[in-house]
């Protein structure tokens, strides 16, 4: 059938899309029946454990596994020697392009251990206790090297260099010496010198943010079974089991078709489960042992060895005329991405000034490596940090100009036709609508008490579509099974059931959605990039319309009239008009139960590369109260306003808004990777790495703005990432209002806020803004 027209139909009145039915996975999850990564078992399976480097930076001279291998109960040991070194600079495309060479070295350390927790060897044994004993029996000969964990320190010429072959890309001429700066990015629009010359008010600030973890509740877990015939199965929690399949096959030298990966239910990912860590290791152990192998990370391993996001060091400068027109924006962004190149600084640089219609912009970004775990994607990778710096400076600019911060933003806001600093012009978007909704919201005018302050900030994310497959199979009883290839993290089964039900005209509970394994559908990109509601939705619409076409053809055959004389209305095939003949309507069930007699099973399917994802903007309001004696910041009220284009299942959209806001609050106030001078992580557990819990935050209010995306027939935009972009700055702006002190380092934990207040009062060392 022809591709679906993407233009939204403004006249369309939805019957099911936009309603809030119960989630299909709800009962399983609240009863504990849902199967997560660690819940899979196979007869005779072994338990695997990973030996990790205690050193943040060390050359691995030798690994002796001989004693471990002969321990009773040990069935396999793997080290770097079991993972061939890719000879090319091939990349694997998942959430961005990752170097295969780096993936292999991150899965298992090769020449050097590059961070504390870097995997060095792994054991599969008949019990966890035996596996632990075997790890203790492995002897690793390390040459301990100097280390660096801070981004600014890592950029110094005298810093210990992680990779002797890392010469900063993006600078001419090529540097003569290797360094920890993997790449320099720059984005320019106009001439910032000219822009600043027109400015009557200029604000410039430096900021630092600490690395934060995605904080998913479920640690990485998998079960691998590698057969003697070279065929393998893998069950794991992941945001993209097709990527896992392709990456593992590549690493282990397998044909893709010989590896079948099934995604479990997933206890959170937020970008952190978009690559491989333990999956190739479990498969390698299973291949060697000839038995199934289960490998589950502990929480400390999750913190030490899976990707947090970057720590950063940033400088932002904005200039404006006295009447509030921003004349230029300039930023320098340094993002530390862990032990390998690939921090999200590029996205930070592109999104930094996306909320503003600026004539003159200059952003320079540095991708920096340090002795920390390799950064992984985290909701809107790179954007929250840049937004923290830019939106903080916008707030200060408003104060200096004597303008309301929302009015200043409205005066300079990105609109349809605004040229982005990164190149193209924006299409229709909802930034102005979210700002106006924020201004009119009761929250914005509510009175504040002493010691309280209100902050506002906006945020942006690009969104994308990607490769997607959907199959819809009509059953003989009139129900439909929808098979999709993207793990359901944010409610996509419910959303896709709603879309299928809407298109087919059947009740929501007649559609059952499943996440199919990697051998059942064509390739699917990951669940990430805020793509699933948009891209899988497009595929579901196309598959459903194909199914309807077949249903109409079958009805036509039954009635003996041409297929084009049949229409599909309200879940029934009907004659198109009086001339088509007088026939009683046939329901989906009527047609499906006689499918065997009319040509066989009835299905619809779609295999697409979804293009046309619309950009996403949001604006947040937050009230805080600061305890000046302890430095504790309490969030009193929080409102998220974001453009969803069209909300398929509004409860899930609100859930994304709320979840992003709470993660952003944690980033702003408490969460941080704390490293000792020894380069070791000091807080690898939820007791010391403090994520917000329900009692820490108020009910997060939400407002769904709907400015249709012209690239989707319903107008859908992705919503999952933008909600984490504004909170860092919104909270910082609220704290500044409450205290008169501008916090320029995250997190704004009680000791840091207290010290800043003391300094501002002239009691402690330093004075003025906290550094």
């Amino acid at each position: 059938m022809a591709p679906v027209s993407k233009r939204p139909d403004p006249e369309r009145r939805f019957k099911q899309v936009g309603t809030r039915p119960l989630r299909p996975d709800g009962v399983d999850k609240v009863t504990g029946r849902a199967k997560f990564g660690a819940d899979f078992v196979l007869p005779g399976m072994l338990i695997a454990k990973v030996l990790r480097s205690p050193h943040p930076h060390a050359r691995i001279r030798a690994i002796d596994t001989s004693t471990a291998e002969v321990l009773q109960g040990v069935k396999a040991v793997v080290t770097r020697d079991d993972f061939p070194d890719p000879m090319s600079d091939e990349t694997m495309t998942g959430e961005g392009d990752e170097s295969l060479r780096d993936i292999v070295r991150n899965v298992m350390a090769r020449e050097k251990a590059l961070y504390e927790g870097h995997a060095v060897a792994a054991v599969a044994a008949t019990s966890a206790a035996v596996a632990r004993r075997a790890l203790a029996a492995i002897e690793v000969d390390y040459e301990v090297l100097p280390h660096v964990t801070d981004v600014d320190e890592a950029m110094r010429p005298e810093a210990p260099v992680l990779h002797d072959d890392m010469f900063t890309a993006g600078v001419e001429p090529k540097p003569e010496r290797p360094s920890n700066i993997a790449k320099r990015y720059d984005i320019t629009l106009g001439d910032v010198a000219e822009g600043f010359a027109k400015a009557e008010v200029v604000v410039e600030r430096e900021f630092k943010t600490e690395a934060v973890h995605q904080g998913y509740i479920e640690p990485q877990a998998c079960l691998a079974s590698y057969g003697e015939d070279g065929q393998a199965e893998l069950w794991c929690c992941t945001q993209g089991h097709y990527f896992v399949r392709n990456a593992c096959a590549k690493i282990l030298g397998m044909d893709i078709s010989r590896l079948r990966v099934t995604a479990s239910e997933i206890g959170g990912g937020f970008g952190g489960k978009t690559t491989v860590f333990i999956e190739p290791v479990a498969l390698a152990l299973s291949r060697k042992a000839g038995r199934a192998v289960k490998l589950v990370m502990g929480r400390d391993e999750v913190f030490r060895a899976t990707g947090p996001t970057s720590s950063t060091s940033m400088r932002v400068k904005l200039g404006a005329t006295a009447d509030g027109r921003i004349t230029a924006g300039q930023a320098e962004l340094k993002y530390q991405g862990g032990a390998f190149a690939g921090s999200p600084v590029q996205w930070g640089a592109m999104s930094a000034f996306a909320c503003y219609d600026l004539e003159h912009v200059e952003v320079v970004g540095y991708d920096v490596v340090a002795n920390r775990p390799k950064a992984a994607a985290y909701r809107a990778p790179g954007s929250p940090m840049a937004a923290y710096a830019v939106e903080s400076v916008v707030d200060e600019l408003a104060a200096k100009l004597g303008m309301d911060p929302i009015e200043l933003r409205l005066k300079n806001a990105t609109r349809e036709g605004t040229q982005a600093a990164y190149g193209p012009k924006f299409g229709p978007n909802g930034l102005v609508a979210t700002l106006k909704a924020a201004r009119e919201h009761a929250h914005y005018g509510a009175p504040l008490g002493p010691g309280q302050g209100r902050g506002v900030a906006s945020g942006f994310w690009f969104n994308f579509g990607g490769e997607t497959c959907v199959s819809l199979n009509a059953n003989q009883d009139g129900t439909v099974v929808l098979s999709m290839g993207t793990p359901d993290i944010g409610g996509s089964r419910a959303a896709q059931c709603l879309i299928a039900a809407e298109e087919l005209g059947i009740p929501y509970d007649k559609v059952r959605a499943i996440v199919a394994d990697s051998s059942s559908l064509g390739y699917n990109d990951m669940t990430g990039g805020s793509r699933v509601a948009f891209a899988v939705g497009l595929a579901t619409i196309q598959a459903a319309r194909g199914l309807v076409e077949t249903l109409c053809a079958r009805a036509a055959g039954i009635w003996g009239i041409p297929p084009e004389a049949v229409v599909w209305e309200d879940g029934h095939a009907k004659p198109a008009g009086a001339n088509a003949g007088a026939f009683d309507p046939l329901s989906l069930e009527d047609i499906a139960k006689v499918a065997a007699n009319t040509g066989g099973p009835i299905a619809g399917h779609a295999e697409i590369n979804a293009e046309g994802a619309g950009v996403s903007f949001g604006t947040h309001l937050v009230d805080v109260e600061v305890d000046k004696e302890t430095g504790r910041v309490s969030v009193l009220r929080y409102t998220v306003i974001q453009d969803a284009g069209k909300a398929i299942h509004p409860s899930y959209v609100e859930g994304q808004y709320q979840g992003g806001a709470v993660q952003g609050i944690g980033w702003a106030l408490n969460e941080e990777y704390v490293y000792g001078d020894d380069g070791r992580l000091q807080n690898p557990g939820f007791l010391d790495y403090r994520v917000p819990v329900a009692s820490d935050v108020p009910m997060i209010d939400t407002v769904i703005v709907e400015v249709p995306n012209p690239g989707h027939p319903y107008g859908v935009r992705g919503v999952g990432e933008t909600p984490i972009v504004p909170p860092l700055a919104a909270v910082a702006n609220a704290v500044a209002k409450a205290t008169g002190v501008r916090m320029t380092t995250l997190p704004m934990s009680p000791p840091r806020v207290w010290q800043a207040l003391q300094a501002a009062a002239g009691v402690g060392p330093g004075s003025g803004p906290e550094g």
Partner: protein
Amino acid sequence: MVRVMLGGSLKNSAGGLSEFDVEAGTIRELLTRLGDQQPQLKPILDKGVAVAIDGQIYRNAWLEPVPPDSEVFILPRLAGG
């Protein structure tokens, strides 16, 4: 002839040049001919880029038509979490 601009962090990837005229009817033709014209860009183009045509960003659409008077930017491939 299509006017192609390098956007985002690719802007300075061609030795100071950032705008090119390319004869192309589709994204694939555009990328192939741009790589032929500017060999220093070829490794970047081969690794994968996004193409924005009149503000609409395409990540992997070789066959998408490129109207002759459209505004075209080559961008880094977009990702997400």
